[in-house]
C-alpha cells in the first residue's frame, strides 16, 4: 500500500517533467547565463574566432564592393532575429520559436551567418534575456556556426535533386545539429559523477529531445514555406543577396 502511494507521487512528478518537456519554450536551447564555467566560456569564444574572422572578411568584402550592401546585410540580420523571436503557431498553445539559422545559412551563406549569429545572440540576450553574455561564445558556436554550416552543406548536397526536400532537410538537420552541439557543450561543462561525459551527454540529449525534435520538424516545414514564398515574390532580391561564399544563387 505504501509502495502504491509512493508511486503515485512519482507519477505526478513524471507527469510534471513530461509536461515541462513537451512545452518548448522560447530559446530553450540557448545556454543560459551562468551555466558554463569561466574557462569554458573563454574556450568557446576562442573556437569561434576563426569563423568570425572568416565571416567578417566575407561581409567586409561585400560592403567594400558596394557600400549600399550594408543596408541589405543588416536587414538579413534583423530578419534572423525577428524570425527567432516570433511565436510560431503551435497546437498546444505553448511558446515556441524558430532558430532561423538554417534559412539564414541557405540565403546568406554560412560564413556571414557567424557574424549575423553573434549579433543576433547579443540582441537576444539584451532584449529578450535569452542566452547570456558569458555563454555568448558557446551559443555562437552552436547556433551561428555549427548549425548553419551543416544546414548549408546539406542544402548544397541535395539542392540539385529536389529543392524543397533539400531546404527541409537542411533546416531540420541544422536545427538538430545545433541541439546536439548544445547538449554536448552542457555535458562537457557538467559531466555526470558516474559515467562522466558520455552519460551526461545522453542525459542532456534525452531531456531536450522531446522539445527539440518536434521543433526541428516544424522549423523544416516553415523554412520550406518561407523559402518558396521568397523565391516566388523576390527572386531578384534573393539573387543579389547570395553574398557570402555562396549562399543562394
Amino acid at each position: 500500500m505504501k509502495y502504491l502511494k509512493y508511486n503515485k507521487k512519482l507519477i505526478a512528478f513524471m507527469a510534471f517533467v513530461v509536461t515541462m518537456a513537451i512545452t518548448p519554450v522560447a530559446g530553450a536551447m540557448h545556454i543560459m547565463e551562468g551555466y558554463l564555467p569561466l574557462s569554458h566560456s573563454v574556450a568557446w569564444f576562442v573556437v569561434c574566432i576563426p569563423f568570425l574572422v572568416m565571416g567578417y572578411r566575407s561581409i567586409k568584402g561585400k560592403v567594400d564592393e558596394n557600400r549600399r550592401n550594408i543596408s541589405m546585410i543588416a536587414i538579413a540580420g534583423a530578419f534572423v532575429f525577428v524570425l527567432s523571436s516570433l511565436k510560431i503557431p503551435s497546437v498546444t498553445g505553448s511558446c515556441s520559436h524558430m532558430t532561423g539559422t538554417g534559412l539564414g545559412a541557405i540565403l546568406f551563406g554560412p560564413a556571414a551567418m557567424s557574424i549575423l549569429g553573434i549579433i543576433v545572440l547579443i540582441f537576444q540576450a539584451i532584449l529578450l534575456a535569452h542566452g547570456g553574455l558569458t555563454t555568448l561564445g558557446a551559443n555562437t558556436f552552436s547556433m551561428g556556426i555549427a548549425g548553419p554550416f551543416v544546414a548549408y552543406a546539406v542544402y548544397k548536397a541535395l539542392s540539385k535533386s529536389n529543392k524543397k526536400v533539400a531546404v527541409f532537410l537542411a533546416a531540420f538537420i541544422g536545427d538538430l545539429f545545433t541541439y546536439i552541439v548544445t547538449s554536448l557543450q552542457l555535458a562537457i561543462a557538467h559531466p555526470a559523477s558516474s559515467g562522466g561525459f558520455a552519460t551526461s551527454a545522453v542525459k542532456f540529449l534525452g531531456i531536450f529531445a522531446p522539445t527539440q525534435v518536434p521543433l526541428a520538424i516544424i522549423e523544416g516545414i516553415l523554412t520550406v514555406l518561407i523559402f518558396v514564398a521568397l523565391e516566388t515574390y523576390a527572386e531578384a532580391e534573393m539573387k543579389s543577396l547570395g553574398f557570402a561564399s555562396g549562399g543562394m544563387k
Partner: protein
Amino acid sequence: MKNNKIDRHKDDINKEACVHEPAQHRAEHSHRLFTHHHSHGEGSSIDYQAYHSKIRGWNPTFKFLFTCIALILCIGLDNPYVSVTTIVAMGFVSIVLGGVSFHDYLSTMMLPITFILLGTLMIGIDFSLTPKGEYNFHFGFFYIITSKSRLLHMGAIILKVFGAISTMITLTLSTPATEIVGVLRKLKVPKLIIELMNMIYRYIFVMMDTYRQMKESAESRLGFVDYKTSLHTFAGIASNIFVVTLKRSGDYYNALESRCYEGELLFLEEEKPIKAVQAGFAVLYVVVVLALWWAT
C-alpha cells in the same frame, strides 16, 4: 473552449503589439505605442524598462564593466553565499534604485525557467538499473538515483545561474541597447560590426511593426483558423516582412546618405560622469563578495 482560444489570440496580439516600437519614432520619451504589458514568456518589455529606468543616467561603460566583473565573480567564485549576495544586491539595484516593479523583475528572471529546470534536473539525478544511490526512485525496470551531495550541488548551480541572470538583467533593464552598442564601440569592436548592430537594432523594430500589422490583418481574415492554415499564414507573413523590408532597403540607405552618412552612424551621447557613490558601491560590492568567498 472556443472563447478561450480567441482570448489567447487576443493576448498574443497584445503581446506582439507591445514588443517594439518602430525605430523611426525612437526618441527619448516617445513610447506611446509601447503599451506596457505584463509579459508572460517573451520578455518583450526589457527595452521599455531600460528607457524608463531610474538609473539610466548612470555611466553605461561603468554599468557594463561592473556587470562583467560581477558576472566573473559570481561564476568564477562558484560559491552559494556569493550567489545569494549577488541575487540580493542585483535585486536591490534593479528594484529599489532602478524602479523596476518587483513583478516585472521576477518575470524577467523566470523567462528561462524551463531550461534551468530541465538542465539542472539532469545534473542532479542519474539513471541506473540497480538501486545503488543514496536515494532511489523505482520506475519499472530502472531507477532514478540521487544523493544529498548531488542535490546540494544542483541547488548551488541553480543559485549561481540565478545570480548570473540577475546580474545580466540588471544591466539590460537599465541600459538601452544603443548605449550598450556605444560601449562596445568604445571597447574598439570593429566599426563595421558596430554599424551592423546599430542598423539591425533599428530594422528589428521596423520588421516587428510590419509583422504586427500583417498578423492583425491575417487574423481578421481567419488566417489562423486551424493549424495548417496557421503554418501557411505564418510563413507568408515571415517571408513578406523580409521581402517588404528588403525592397525598401535602398530607400533606407538613401535616407541615410541624404543626411551625410559615410559609413559611420554617430549618435549624440550624453555625458554621464561616474559618481563617487556609484564607484563606492561597486568597490564595496566586490570587497563584500571577496570577503564572503574567503570566509566560507
